[in-house]
């Protein structure tokens, strides 16, 4: 296999190689090619996974607090509306009207862009590194892991709908009786009841909460790993917290449209 490099452009073919078409010089070293799948990326995948984990944990804390706030709906219309009004006026005069809400919105939006952007880059890198022969026949094993992109897209769709429905009250998504909050009153309770009295809206909400459970159950466990938890006890606690938090958020939220549809809330 000597002088394989010199045979213009087709090193191996010239010498009647045992492996026609192969780079003999490389093969002597046990290698087919020196090319990498990609050039060293500017933002490594492990860093993107840390970004996903941090933004995901921010989302998880937000949906937990949001769910607890939602449950105030069972304390009565007045109390719930007062809570919604309080959210808009809290910390005044240090913050303007809706100041805290806007801080939260901006943080969430930044996290969303980072989270979805990283998800897309990681997805395409994973496909490139796997190559043309996909891993098949996984069955129900790691179902939640494999459906992260699907449940994530459902969540993205839900977030858009949810904002149009109950925040901006945009026609099409919101109920016809939607009333925006004013400087001295919120109508969150009436808006919520009117929205969930539409079976399609309630059903989409239900679907989104199931997607949220699946996404969070795997996502929080992945975050434990991505943030570098190697201790046995820490990992066990993380695994349990991921499951319990995901379940609590789903159940706490799902109970509301069910109560509306069964007439418990009206």
């Amino acid at each position, binding site marked *: 296999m000597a002088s394989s490099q010199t045979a213009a452009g087709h090193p191996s073919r010239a010498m009647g190689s045992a*492996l*026609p*078409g*192969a780079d003999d010089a490389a*093969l002597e*070293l*046990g*290698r*087919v*090619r020196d090319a*990498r*799948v*990609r*050039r*060293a*990326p500017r933002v*490594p*995948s*492990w*860093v*993107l*996974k*840390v970004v996903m984990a941090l933004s995901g944990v921010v989302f998880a804390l937000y949906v937990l607090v949001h769910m607890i706030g939602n449950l105030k709906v069972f304390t009565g219309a007045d109390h719930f509306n007062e809570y919604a009004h309080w959210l808009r006026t809290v910390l005044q005069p240090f913050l303007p009207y809706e100041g805290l809400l806007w801080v939260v919105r901006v943080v969430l939006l930044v996290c969303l862009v980072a989270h979805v952007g990283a998800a897309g880059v*990681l997805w395409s*890198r*994973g*496909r*490139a*590194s*796997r*190559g*043309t*022969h*996909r*891993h*098949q*026949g*996984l069955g129900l*094993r*790691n179902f939640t*892991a*494999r459906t*992260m992109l699907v449940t994530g897209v459902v969540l993205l769709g839900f977030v858009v709908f949810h904002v149009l429905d109950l925040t901006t009250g945009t026609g099409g998504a919101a109920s016809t009786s939607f009333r925006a909050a004013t400087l001295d009153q919120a109508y969150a309770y009436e808006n919520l009841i009117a929205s969930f009295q539409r079976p399609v809206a309630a059903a989409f909400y239900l679907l989104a909460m199931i997607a949220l459970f699946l996404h969070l159950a*795997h996502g929080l*466990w*992945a975050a*434990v*790993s*991505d*943030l*570098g*938890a*190697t201790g*046995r006890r820490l*990992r066990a606690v993380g695994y349990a917290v991921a499951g319990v938090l995901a379940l609590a958020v789903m159940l706490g939220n799902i109970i509301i449209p069910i109560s509306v549809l069964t007439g418990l809330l009206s």
Partner: protein
Amino acid sequence: MRLVIEVWRQDTPQGPGRYETHTVDDATPEMSILELLDRLNDQLVENGLEPVAFESDCREGICGACGVTVDGNPHGPQRNTPSCHQRLAGYADGQRIRLEPLRSAAFPVIRDLVVDRSAMDRIIAAGGHVAIDAGTAPDANSLLVPHESAERALDMAACIGCGACVAACPNGAAHLFVGSKLTHLSLLPTGRQERGKRARAMLSEMEQDFGPCSLYGECARVCPAHIPLTAIAAVNKEGLRSFFRQKDD
């Protein structure tokens, strides 16, 4: 026992590959996957055909040379068992068995079932070793290693570098492999001195061929050395540590 073997044939790294179907009539339950291939190759040679290329060395689960995908499972259907130890006991007379190479874009096929795993060698060359002058062996008990660390380091050092974890991963990630090396070397006094430098070097090499980890957990199911999923977290842990510390150790 008669087995119908669908085996991947590929003459050159450029491909294209194809499945070829052969029948082995005298397979036995205690045969390993590799012995089945030996038997098939005897038959092929007797008939004047080219034998199937595949890799093996020790055939006792310690070298990491073997590794074929059996019915979609890297190494074979039994969990945590190298191809050389996978027996045919689970197969029934007349059953089909599909043999293909370990699959990953980072492992180009050289020929038939032989793949080029030098992407893993490059990671080891980048930092999976001790590159300081370790001096002569220290006096006994002068360098104490806690029992727990020694045990853990030994567990992680069990990796034989076969590449099944990569082939099992839907993302083509090498986290189980890299994480086991990083953990093993960071736990011991000599290896620890280059802990940060090593993490940066190995991760940056890893990024060029392998995918991100989405915690499917498939790697730990196939690993013949029983490296636990914890090794995966070690990749990000060492990455974060070296990033914030910015030192060699």
